[in-house]
């Protein structure tokens, strides 16, 4: 799996996205259709195949549960490394493009989400743009992660806060 991550960049505000060319529109339709197929597919291997077709970077031995929603517009900004487990109903977002009137306070941007080896994302968690999840980290059920999670750390809540480290238990 490639190690070079895409950099954070600015993207058009919502009003400007309505003037997409045909290529961009087709890409969005493809991503949405494949995303919906992966969303409701009962076969776990097919879910991973559909997400890879969309452009999500997925390593080996990864589990992606049913009803997971990965960003529709920029799935290529999602990096999932080996042995990661993303359980049902999770949501990973990588972009944010508000209306232009919010531009002074909310810049439109896309930033990569990186989920490192062995991490577990429990059911109904949400990962927001630009977040890095460390190796063997655990995101507890229903958490909303807005900051980076260090290695061997368990986070929980909205916004997700550190509950404990467990490095010493796994060494």
């Amino acid at each position: 799996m490639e190690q070079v991550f895409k950099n954070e960049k600015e993207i058009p505000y919502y009003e400007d996205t309505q003037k997409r060319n045909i290529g961009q529109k087709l890409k969005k339709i493809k991503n949405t259709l494949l995303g919906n197929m992966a969303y409701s597919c009962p076969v776990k291997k097919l879910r991973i195949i559909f997400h890879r077709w969309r452009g999500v970077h997925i390593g080996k031995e990864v589990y992606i549960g049913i009803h997971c929603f990965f960003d529709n517009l920029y799935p290529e900004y999602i990096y999932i490394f080996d042995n990661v487990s993303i359980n049902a109903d999770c949501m990973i977002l990588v972009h944010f493009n508000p209306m232009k009137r919010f531009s002074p306070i909310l810049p439109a941007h896309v930033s990569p989400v990186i989920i490192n080896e062995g991490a577990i994302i429990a059911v109904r968690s949400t990962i927001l743009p630009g977040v890095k999840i460390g190796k063997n980290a655990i995101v507890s059920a229903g958490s909303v992660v807005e900051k980076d999670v260090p290695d061997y750390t368990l986070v929980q809540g909205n916004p997700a806060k550190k509950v404990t480290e467990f490095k010493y238990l796994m060494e």
Partner: protein
Amino acid sequence: MKNQQEFIQNFASQFDETDASIFTIETRFKELDEWSSLISLAELNMIAKNYGVKLTPEEMKRSQTLQELYNLILSKKQQ
């Protein structure tokens, strides 16, 4: 005895909302409102970090009071 007090302090420090002063060696920690599987994991990590003993979640479940847990750590340390 000092070590026992230290253990109680370390154990209490994993709790956010529970007052540290209520912890004694006879405290039945599983009956505390804040006790959860996540706190249990934090305690297991604290024990591994400070005492070099890796307890299993089952061993943690079997212990009722801090005294039982402390004795378990000592017996494991001697092995």
